[in-house]
């Protein structure tokens, strides 16, 4: 022993998992979704995703004065998630501003990864939505052309406006919509990877999708229940946005409440609100409530007998 011994607190072994490895897992999980987006909407979708990721990573690297663009990978995830909520081909500057807002305002105002209260990608998306709704909502939904990588863009109304898409199309994704929200199939494949790696818990997606389905039943039976689940951003939101570790509760009961809240607000906006889609607002609102939910749902300690009220 020529060097000094190391002394530290127990435990002396650590799992190989790091933040970076988790972020890479999330990127892997988003890969089928991204692939599907390119398959349906062509190379313009790829361009949107790359612009968003690069802008997000560059913003973070500048803020942290870090040379390594990828870093812990969280900025890449945020950028890609933001792109997933955007239409296939918004103007490039809209994407860049969205990424800058997401990383700058949504994340680094709070001191960076882990400290933010609101999901950065959704903050970016909400700001874009309020600022330039003509570019990110409205008449921007390009009709999907499978294998039409360079096909001309023809827009059509969102299935959340028309309510006439077939459930099969919604499941496969051959409908118009934001890059990452059309194909429930791809989203589920990605989410299975995350489940397998233990990065998401069934509670948030389960309660979110469950309550959307149940409320959908009231909107027109089984068909509408499924329609509400498959159309729009519910799958993307429930599987990838609401499950964002940083901005969702850590307690098991809290996760259920969180998912329920997201679903209820989403459906309230869809059914009664002034906008066709409410996933973004639902999740952002519940993000704000997360600290309170955590505080109110402290788990029962091992061996503790709940005091009878």
């Amino acid at each position, binding site marked *: *022993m*020529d*060097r000094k*011994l*190391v*002394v*530290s*607190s*127990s*435990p*002396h*072994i*650590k*799992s190989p*998992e*790091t*933040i970076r*490895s*988790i972020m890479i897992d999330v990127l892997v999980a988003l890969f089928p979704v991204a692939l599907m987006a390119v398959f349906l909407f062509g190379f313009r979708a790829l361009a949107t995703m790359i612009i968003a990721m690069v802008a997000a990573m560059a913003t973070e690297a500048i803020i942290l004065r870090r040379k390594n663009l990828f870093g*812990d990978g969280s900025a890449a995830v945020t950028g890609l998630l933001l792109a997933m909520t955007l239409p296939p081909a918004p103007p490039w500057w809209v994407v860049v501003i969205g990424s800058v807002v997401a990383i700058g305002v949504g994340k680094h105002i709070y*001191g*960076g*990864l*882990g*400290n933010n209260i609101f999901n950065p990608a959704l903050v970016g998306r909400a700001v874009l939505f309020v600022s330039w709704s003509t570019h990110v909502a409205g008449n921007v939904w390009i009709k999907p052309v499978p294998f039409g990588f360079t096909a001309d863009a023809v827009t059509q109304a969102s299935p959340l406006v028309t309510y006439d898409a077939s459930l099969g199309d919604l499941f496969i994704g051959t409908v118009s919509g934001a890059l990452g929200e059309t194909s429930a199939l791809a989203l589920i494949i990605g989410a299975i990877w995350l489940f397998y790696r*233990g*990065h998401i*818990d069934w509670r948030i997606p389960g309660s979110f999708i469950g309550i959307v389905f149940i409320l959908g039943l009231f909107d027109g039976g089984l068909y509408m229940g499924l329609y509400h689940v498959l159309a729009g951003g519910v799958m993307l939101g429930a599987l990838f946005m609401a499950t964002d*570790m*940083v*901005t*969702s*509760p*850590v*307690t*098991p009961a809290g996760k259920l409440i969180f998912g329920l809240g997201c679903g209820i607000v989403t459906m309230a906006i869809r059914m009664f609100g002034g906008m066709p889609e409410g996933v973004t607002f639902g999740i952002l609102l519940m993000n704000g409530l997360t600290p309170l939910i*955590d505080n109110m749902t*402290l*788990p*029962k*300690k*091992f*061996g*503790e*007998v709940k005091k009878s009220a």
Partner: protein
Amino acid sequence: MSERTFVGGIHPGYFKESTSGIPIAPAKAPSQVIIPLQQNIGAPCEAIVKVGDEVKMGQKIGEPKGFVSAPIHASVSGKVSKIEPFNHPMGTQVLAVFIENDGQDTPDEGMKPNKSLEELTPEEIKAISKEAGLVGMGGATFPTHVKLSPPPEIQIDTVIINGAECEPFLTADHRLMLERADDIVFGLQAFMKALGATRGIIGIEDNKPDAISSVRKAVAESSGDYNIEVHPLHTKYPQGAEKMLIKATTGREVPPGALPMAVNVVNQNTGTAIAMAEAIKLGKPLYERVVTVTGPGIKKPGNLLVRNGTLIRDIIEQCGGLTSDARKLVLGGPMMGLAQPTDEIPAIKGTSGVLVLTEEFVKEQPIASCIKCGKCVEVCPMNLLPSFIGAASEKKVYDLAEKYGAMDCFECGCCTYTCPAKRPLVQWIRIAKGAIAASRKK
């Protein structure tokens, strides 16, 4: 095979293969033993020998000063050369008795067989366990006679022998269960008799099928009138933690802050059961124990029977010495063991393992912000919120740390093991516990 377990926990790499197949071998007695006068939780002992005294092997050299304490015995015969403070595995300096070994191993006259178990009364068993200086040998070193003396209003109905050995790397208990299963059963019978318990359970993790069958065989052969069951347990850390073991074997949950006695259960370690058997059968006090010497930093890992007071350096030497990239010395297992600043530390009754880790294990990773992934919450066997306790402790908001359950943590290390942000949660919790205890005292 019913696998019972608890909620939470982790599945670290176990690293047991390197030593689980190596039979226990007696370690060479060193030329000098250094026996600290504090070997268990509770008050330290008072030396009852003087410098220059000749002592015999097994002779009592330290007399306990309080109830929660156990006597200490010489592990070699020879001459007391000095009594002065020396390094202690707890990281402090503690008064220790230095004995020059004369190599004769002259046994003390007091070491003679007791009556058979059938003839002994519960009181006598307790007295034997106290005189023999028995303590919990899993690491916590709680004096055994205290565990055998529950308050009169509590009737213990179950004694559990902890053969889980859930700490990675360690195999001492595993070997004992293979080689000394009869003594384990005998020890358990003694505990049951002392407590008037009607049920004995030996819990063994199911990654040790050979131990399970060995102990099962011993139970079938020699349990006699005693109702003893062998429970295979789900392999998961910290299955061997007192409260988790009780939950897994009996389904009872020990309330926060309480001892297993609260649910009428007493836990004992396999090593303690064997020491109990030896104390009754041979009159032999606890002055040596099996230690697993292992880890990637050890050239020839093994399981050694080590005399109390042997320097870790001598033990390591007998195992071929250290590899060149050894960087960390841990007494105990990798999850709860204590890292040592030097190898000039004596082995004591609670030393279950000598673990030497190499460079790759000690690479310091930067502490990132908590990303609230909740993985620590999932794995916490006590159902606490380690991430929040850690964050509160980092900011020195100790009342918040208490609210999230800091005081109920038993430092199993699952949270720190799991944390992808590499946050030293256990250490923060430990700091918070200290601060909370200090403020309560005020």
